[in-house]
């Protein structure tokens, strides 16, 4: 009879193979595996304990589309009856005519009138198969083609930090820079405003991603924005809706 022992604590960073706990009293969950008596990390991550259950929160890695995710994608091809969309993951998605618009599209219509190659779209993942074939849809609030603006790709694991609790971080940046900002679950950020304000927005977002592990980041970013965005005219233009 071995005694149970925990080798790590909440929020420890662990590497693949590292022993997290010994004994049958602990239960392996996401990102961990049982190896005899031990529970080991099966990837690089942050330890999260839930009673006796040990799981990891990933710190890095590619975005994989999940059903229900709202992402920002890029139209990369026009198909027979739909479009191919780059999801900034290893797998591209298909947007079918039926999911693209509620309008009636006649046969042999020029599909580029609706979406053209190079268009940036806010879209929703509606299906992911076992082979990672992905369907996306434009049906839903806020899903649309995005107008002039620039995109920025950040680590998808930093997305919750960029958005902040109930969107607090992103609204704070919007308020200080006057830019419209949209964040996709896939780590693609779209922003639009005056060029010099967009630059400040990009710098702010890059800063959040680089320092995402710091506690008190919101206050720190508040001070940074007050310093760097003090000349910005805060009257934000109305977001164009389609």
């Amino acid at each position, binding site marked *: 009879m071995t005694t149970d022992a925990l080798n790590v604590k909440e929020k420890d960073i662990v590497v693949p193979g590292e022993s997290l706990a010994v004994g049958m009293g602990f239960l392996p969950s996401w990102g961990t595996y049982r190896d005899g008596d031990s529970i080991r990390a099966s990837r690089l991550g942050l330890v999260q304990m839930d009673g006796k259950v040990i799981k990891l929160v990933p710190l890095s890695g590619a975005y994989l589309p999940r059903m229900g995710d709202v992402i920002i994608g890029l139209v990369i091809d026009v198909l027979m009856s739909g479009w191919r969309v780059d999801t900034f993951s290893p797998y591209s998605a298909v947007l079918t005519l039926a999911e693209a618009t509620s309008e009636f599209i006649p046969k042999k219509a020029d599909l580029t009138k609706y979406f053209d190659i*190079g*268009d940036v779209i806010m879209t929703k993942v509606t299906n992911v198969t076992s082979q990672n074939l992905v369907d996306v849809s434009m049906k839903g609030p806020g899903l649309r083609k995005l107008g*002039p*603006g*620039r995109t920025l790709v950040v680590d998808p694991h930093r997305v919750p930090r960029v958005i902040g609790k109930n969107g607090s971080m992103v609204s704070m940046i919007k308020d200080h820079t006057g830019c419209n900002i949209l964040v996709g679950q896939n780590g693609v950020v779209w922003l639009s405003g005056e*060029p010099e304000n967009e*630059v400040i927005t990009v*710098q702010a977002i890059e800063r959040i991603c680089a320092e995402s592990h710091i506690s008190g980041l919101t206050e720190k970013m508040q001070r940074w924005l007050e310093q760097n965005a003090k000349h910005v005219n805060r009257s934000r233009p109305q977001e164009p809706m389609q």
Partner: protein
Amino acid sequence: MEQKNHMLKYLQKGIRFDGRKLDQYRLINVEYGVSNSAEGSAIVNVGDTKIIVGVKLAVEKPFLDTADCGNLMVNAELTPMSSPDFEPGPPTETGIELARIVDRGIRESHAIDVHKLCIKEGEKVWSVAIDVCTLNAAGNLIDAAALGALAALKDARYPAYDLEKNAIDYGEKTDKKLPLECQPIAVTVWKIGDYLLVDPLPQEENAADARLTVTTIADGSVASLQKGGDCPLSVEEVDSMVGLAIEKAKELRKALG
């Protein structure tokens, strides 16, 4: 097209996607002596672009038509490690052009006095091989590569050489430097719409209409040129691009330390 229009909106206001002015380089950093298996080496950082250059020396038989001259060779590897857009395999057009631009800058400015590389006329000369390898490609590879090549040449020391045995001891470096006569600096000026800029980001390179690489030496004279891109340039444009390159070369020369 929309992305390019958005970029032009920036350029019209005199700024870039990262907030720089049009004629502003990113931070440049040169580190010497980074590979002790090379006779000379350097790492050049230009913003996020990172390039390593190594110089290898060898003793060879000269070419018949230049019996009293050493050999000079520049090769570039756009390693697949440095960008998701580069693939393993033989050099691409981009890589070959890059190497040839760097080569011409050094050769045509006579930066290396090839006569001084002669050991015994018609029999033995030093050959200088400059290898450029990209570590992280984030725009403006040409200028970074040329700067790195020059830095590695400055860093190079001859290995010990026994003439009798015709053998090089690569384990033993002498303190004799290469015959470096001048410092050729390449500055590439890019044209996007009606705007001229230097040290582009990858997005800017993708949106560019044309570019002109101007290699100059310290007195401001031009040693080599290379136009790239498929948009034509007017003579006036060429003239202002050369002017900008001469100005910017002064800054790069300082960065060499």
